[in-house]
């Protein structure tokens, strides 16, 4: 039988442990009453002696090494505590284990410390957070919290089993795709042709927050994007200043920066305009006719998107603030749905690519945002959290948010953290799409029938309950 030669290489993200470079406050505080411990030890020694019963005396309640330092319980090591509470159950008078309020202060009111916990776990090793004992959080809620994804009892994308054996594509396309192709009588293609690039993940990196557009952060994002074969949006001024090169680096250009276009040392896959400017658009297309042109628009984005499509733009980068809101306080979930619906009703959704940023901060938000109508998300604040940046106060407005990156930050470490994060998010995306029976993420876009919303479910379920209506 003839052997088929193929250059197909399965997409792979290299993960590797990238330990924290800055010590964050521990999750738990462990306090031991020293006098109580001494008394208890004495009692144990008197009861069992120290001969061959030493093992009994020294048998401690903690399986995780909190009391296994050189002086045991006299100097607990709370960084190892996983909050099982066995020690305090066994010795309620002597040991107390409480949540550490300092840990809860990480992040801000939207990017809560629980998200930071998940993210730091993901960027540590690139694996999915798996735990026992069911769900521990609030019941539904606002925004993403009030949305569930569907599953199928009998449909699986393939029947090859799970855990890496079956193939689910996470590739998405960015650019212009005509609804149909047109040919003349001789069979030659006439009319618009597709102008697309494909990236293996529906995740891009957005520009770092204004206050932290340091050279290091830019290099980390650019290199991580190259490794992941995705895209990183960076200001053209920064790209030119530090000499970044690579088609995956998306220059963000604003009116008045046209002359910088000639300074780029490469042909980018995508060029992004900060806002609409006819002259800028023309200059970009003149310099880089092969590149896809994207326009940043701030939510809410309604009918005006149709005008930009008329002007020849097919890729839009929609922006909410870092808390996922528009100026009126509407949440990004509804905002995406609204824009998506506008395009569907105009019959051109297929021709347009929607990338979104703002308020998409954890793995589950990616499939949820895609179900609402995005093609891909360009992540912003999660990059900061993965790099162990401190959030200074509330980080809501893009222009004014303050982050502080750790002093020990290195490019190599930062890139690995982002790759680990991407791997963990990719695997979680596979879990969600596998459960839904979807073979490719492209089919997830706008599939509202496969999403469930708390408001609707609750109205259905609690109709007839006194006081509900």
């Amino acid at each position, binding site marked *: 039988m003839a052997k088929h030669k193929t250059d197909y290489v399965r997409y792979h993200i290299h993960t590797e442990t990238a330990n924290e470079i800055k010590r964050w406050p521990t999750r738990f505080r462990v306090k031991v009453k020293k006098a109580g411990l001494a008394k208890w030890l004495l009692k144990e020694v008197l009861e069992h002696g120290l001969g061959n*019963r030493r*093992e*009994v005396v020294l*048998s401690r*309640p903690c*399986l995780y090494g909190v009391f296994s330092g050189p002086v045991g319980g006299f100097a607990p090591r709370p960084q190892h505590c*996983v*909050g*099982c*509470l*066995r020690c305090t*159950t*066994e*010795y*309620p008078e002597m040991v107390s284990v*409480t949540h550490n309020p300092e840990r809860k202060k990480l992040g801000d009111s939207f990017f809560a410390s629980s998200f930071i916990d998940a993210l730091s776990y993901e960027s540590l090793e690139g694996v*999915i957070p*798996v*735990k*026992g*004992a*069911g*769900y*521990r*959080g*609030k*019941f*539904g809620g606002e925004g993403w919290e009030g*949305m*569930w*994804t*569907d*599953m*199928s*009892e*009998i*449909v*699986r994308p393939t029947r090859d089993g*799970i*855990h890496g054996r079956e193939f689910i594509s996470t590739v998405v396309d960015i650019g212009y795709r005509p609804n149909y192709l047109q040919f003349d009588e001789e069979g030659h293609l006439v009319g618009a042709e597709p102008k697309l690039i494909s990236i293996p993940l529906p995740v891009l990196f957005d520009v770092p927050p204004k206050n932290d557009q340091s050279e290091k952060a830019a290099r980390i994002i650019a290199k991580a994007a190259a490794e992941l074969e995705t895209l990183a949006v960076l200001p053209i001024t920064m790209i030119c200043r530090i000499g970044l090169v690579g088609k995956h680096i998306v220059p963000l250009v604003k009116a008045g920066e046209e002359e910088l276009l000639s300074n780029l040392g490469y042909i980018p896959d995508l060029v992004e305009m900060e806002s609409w400017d006819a002259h800028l658009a023309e200059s970009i297309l003149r310099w880089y006719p092969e590149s896809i042109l994207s326009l940043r628009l701030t939510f809410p984005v309604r009918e005006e998107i149709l005008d930009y499509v008329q002007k020849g733009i097919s890729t839009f980068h929609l922006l909410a603030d870092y808390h996922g809101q528009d100026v009126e306080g509407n949440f990004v979930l509804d905002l995406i749905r609204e824009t998506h619906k506008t395009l569907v009703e105009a019959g051109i959704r297929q021709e347009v690519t929607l990338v979104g940023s703002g308020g998409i901060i954890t793995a*589950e938000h990616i499939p*949820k945002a895609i179900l609402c109508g995005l093609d891909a998300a360009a992540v912003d604040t999660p990059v900061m959290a993965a790099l162990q940046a401190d959030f200074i106060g509330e980080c809501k407005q893009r222009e004014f948010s303050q982050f502080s990156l750790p002093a020990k930050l290195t490019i190599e470490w930062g890139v690995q953290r982002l790759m680990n994060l991407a791997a963990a998010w990719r695997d*979680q995306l596979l*879990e*969600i799409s*596998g*459960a839904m029976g979807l073979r490719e993420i492209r089919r997830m876009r706008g599939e509202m*029938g496969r999403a*469930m919303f*708390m408001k609707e*479910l*609750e109205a*259905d*379920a*609690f*109709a007839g*309950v*006194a*006081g*509900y209506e």
Partner: protein
Amino acid sequence: MSREPTNHELIVEKHTRNLRDGYHVWSHDKTDVERALGDYRWTGEMILGTYYQAEHGRPPDNGLEYRVGASGGGFDVLDFNWLPEEKWLAETEGVDVSISLNRRGKGREITIPIPIYGGGMSFGSISEQVMLARAIAAKKWSTFFSTGEGGYPSSLVPFKDHIITQVATGMFGVREETIQHAPIVEFKYAQGAKPGLGGHLLGDKATSSVAALRESVPWVSLFSPFPFHSVYSVEDHRKHVDWIKTTNPEALVSVKVSTPTDVDMVAVGSYFAGANIIHLDGSYGGTGAAPEIAKKNIAMPIEFAVPKVHKYLLGENIRDEVVLMASGGIRSADDIAKIVALGADGAVMGTSELVALGCTRCSNCERGRGCPFGLTTTDLLLSEFVSPEWGAERISNLYQSYEFQLKDILRKLGLSSIRELRGRKDLLVYRGNGRK
């Protein structure tokens, strides 16, 4: 001449005594101490309240809020529409909380005296001691518990009349004789904690005895694929049911499914395939390890799925032919009564049984040697903290407390049977208006 205890025995004895004392102290005089216990769904008070019930067989009278959690939705925003006191029934004694598990009008009649049975937790994911404790308690209450996937060790054979044998996608532990023994066979299509994702037993937990039952290799991880690879349709599912009925014509068949958007259609399909029990497992529950993303986001909570299915089955005129059991985040007697009022016949309990045995809901079940309290582990030393007799007593006490509370709730609603409560949403009150 009595033999000197070994160090192993002394260590087990020391920690077991400490733990049992601790459960008592915590749920009694140390209830207001600040500690990292509990979460939005299972608050610290609810956990302590469950310890208390497991010790005394009655609800706590020390002010612990054991009835509802703080999740801000679902059960936690529902209350009962009590009758004025003068209309309450006089005695809890005349109140019936039994349910039938076969309403098809043919085949074996099984009635359980309380509207609950124990949900699937497999041998390997929990210790043999915990499994035995559940078995003894199930026998005492003439109810059942499910083996979960993977069969059961021979120590449980004396309890076979109270064991629901699970057939899941990996077919682990499924043998002709276990099916022939089983009064109820449960097909697990999906589970709420990880809907659509199959199962995974870590290599560390696949000890020789676990592996022997599963006919696998010790210390090697086992994956249960998703879904049943022989099922593409309701007709295929029907063949599954026929297979069980051929092997054991007397067995009742339960179909355990998760809660997708079309859960109502799934339920109808199961009915037409011949199921006696449709077991809906909502997304917020579960005891086994699962990806956090799945627990929180995939499939709908049980509070929403049950009324949807109940309504649909009513519309199809088949509601009285199937038994609808609900699980996935049902934590208390109040939750049981609420899910019945939303349309279920009864509830399947898992986590609350583990809490009765001392679980703090710390989520570390899969870490290192497994549960530090000896529950979800196969570690030889740790699993000895729970003796089957002690455990059975605790679970049994919890059931007793539930029974008492359920009867009390019915009495205050003017109902003499839990069967009258089914689908009576009008007997619930919504308390979530601040949130809506």
